[in-house]
């Protein structure tokens, strides 16, 4: 078991190195002078020389890569040109929201997707099945930004004045605040990495208000997350529902399912205990892979709902041509994506003993 995990982790290292290299190479190899891109009309030989010296761009390319690698190993993602402060600092402010949003969207997608998939498979060709599959096809084909805007229109415009009205954007209603954890725990003097960790959790408003029992703020934070999470979660939900259905249908045709039925097990036990357990592996795979779509979709979702997560940070970085920000975030999202899929891979070993024993 341990050997399996170590092997998987070692296999991931070259990919991580490759990611760093690609992110670095995009900035250096693609056409376009970074100085002119960043300084625009203020670019002239003198300012560019200063700019290049400041960001190490006057060094030969291999030396630049080495500097980049050593900086990264210290957790330094470079400085944002437009904001004049470290990218890592901005990241710690912005990442918690994106984590909350994607976690909420993914939870929704997994729960609803698997339930719909199981119902569809166990009542094949029923109205529920046909409806779910039509819905899933439409769901994977609707762009996140179209769905998000339509949801805002329905829940903030059409349903205005009914109990179903939902906020069209922003993280919280104006006036509602969450007390930072550092304050509620009396840790305002704390510094260093521990403080960073506390602030990170603190910026996840749902988690923060849940721990400290700020129920009013919790309800408000959750209400503001509903529409973005539905917009973001619909594509993975559709994919998970389809995969659960087809994988479960495959399994339900196996001999051991017939045996389970023949020995008199109830249909619920047959499907959930014998069927779903054996059908779960492909579903776990698509859940891991759908995280890439979720992180990319977060860029669009946050831009529509005015949420200041890393997605919005990327779009801001693009508009201000702040490549350090875009580069840092591309790197971090790819790392998150690879790490999660590594965990998914390792979880196979727990779900399926055959893989563990290989």
């Amino acid at each position, binding site marked *: 078991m341990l050997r399996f995990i170590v092997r998987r982790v070692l296999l991931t290292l070259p990919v991580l190195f490759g990611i760093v290299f690609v992110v670095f190479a995009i900035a250096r190899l693609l056409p376009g002078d970074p100085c002119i891109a960043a300084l625009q009309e203020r670019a002239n030989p003198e300012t560019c020389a200063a700019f290049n010296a400041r960001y190490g761009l006057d060094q030969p390319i291999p030396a630049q890569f080495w500097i980049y690698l050593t900086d990264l190993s210290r957790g330094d993602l470079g400085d944002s040109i437009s904001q004049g402060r470290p990218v890592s600092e901005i990241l710690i402010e912005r990442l918690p929201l994106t984590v909350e949003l994607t976690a909420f969207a993914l939870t929704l997608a997994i729960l609803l997707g698997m339930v719909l998939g199981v119902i569809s498979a166990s009542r094949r060709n029923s109205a529920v099945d046909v409806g779910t599959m039509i819905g899933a096809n439409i769901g994977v084909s609707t762009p996140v930004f179209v769905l998000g805007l339509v949801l805002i229109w329905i829940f903030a415009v059409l349903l205005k004045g009914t109990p179903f009205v939902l906020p069209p954007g922003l993280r919280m209603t104006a006036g509602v605040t969450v007390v930072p954890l550092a304050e509620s725990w009396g840790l305002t003097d704390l510094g260093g990495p521990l403080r960073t960790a506390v602030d990170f959790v603190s910026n996840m408003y749902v988690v923060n208000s849940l721990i400290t029992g700020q129920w009013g703020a919790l309800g408000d934070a959750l209400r503001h997350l509903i529409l973005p999470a539905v917009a973001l979660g619909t594509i993975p939900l559709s994919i998970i529902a389809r995969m659960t259905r087809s994988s479960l249908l495959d399994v339900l045709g196996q001999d051991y399912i017939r045996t389970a039925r023949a020995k008199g097990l109830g249909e619920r036990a047959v499907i959930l205990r014998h069927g779903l357990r054996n059908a779960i592996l492909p579903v776990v795979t698509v859940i891991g892979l759908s995280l890439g779509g979720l992180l*990319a979709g977060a860029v669009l979702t946050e831009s529509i709902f005015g949420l200041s997560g890393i997605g919005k940070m990327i779009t801001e970085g693009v508009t201000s041509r702040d490549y350090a920000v*875009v580069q840092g975030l591309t790197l971090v*999202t790819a790392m998150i994506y690879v790490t999660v899929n590594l965990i998914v891979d390792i979880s196979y070993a727990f779900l399926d003993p055959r893989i563990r024993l290989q």
Partner: protein
Amino acid sequence: MSAQPGVSLPAADGLAAPPTSLWTDTRRNILRHRVAQVGLVLLGALITVAIAAPIISTHEPNDTVGIDEGLLRPDAPPGLRGPCIHLLGCPADRPQHFFGIDRNGRDVYSRVLYGARISLLVGIATVGFAILIGTVLGAVAGYAGGWMDNLIMRIMDVLLAFPSLILAIAMVTVLGPGLLNAALAIGIVGIPIYARVMRASVLTIKERDFVVASRALGESPLGLLLRRIMPNALTPLIVVGTLGIAGAILDVAALSFLGLGAQPPLAEWGSMIGLERNQLFSSPHLIIVPGIALSLSVLGFNLLGDGLRDALDPRLNR
């Protein structure tokens, strides 16, 4: 299951109907497949609209007709910008705009029609580019094997390790915004999928008897690849490519929505939605109409792709 490599299947002649070609089977299966039928209808409509846009549109896509018609005057009620169809009871003295006009006074119906051309073209060109590069890389990797295979496929692994839209955003940031750059970025990001599919096909086919026989007869590696292996590796590429067009249309529209792809005044669905998103509360048709057009096009390619996957699977042939 499938035949072992090197073991030929027993001939089935004299037992059933005369042999049919793959394409005949596929055509028959596609036409029987209900999901694929819906996909074909949607794509037929999309292609018709794209070709006939100049004939069936009512205005030039970039004509600011609404200004001449006085619909954008500050004293004109915003309701005037909404859809107006005379047949459906819109007063005859109001200028007719099937889907209303946008903030610049352009006819939304005509712009949506012309948008079909761009999405269709961009989707096919992007995937065509990715397939071209991807199949060459995959074929070389699969056929050459060894360190070459390892090198190419590890690079593909790294490209696949990025959430694709985010990698495309990073590329466009450096390349500069524009429809061509956005399509190029989405194309590059799509390469690894086709390389993987092609490599897998080449690996299974290159040891088959008929390929070994051709090689023994002195066929060059290039001839083997193009004439023996390629035709047999085509079916999975077609399926993945069709589904890939759906993804490419979505991604390019997303980049355009963010202002990184098509630039105004080009009538592209994603950028139309992006530029008018703040009008959602007063003129929702500006978002909903191009949004539906975009979703239906993507749906068409997705359904056809699913149908093709079922239809090209010979195990389903009876």
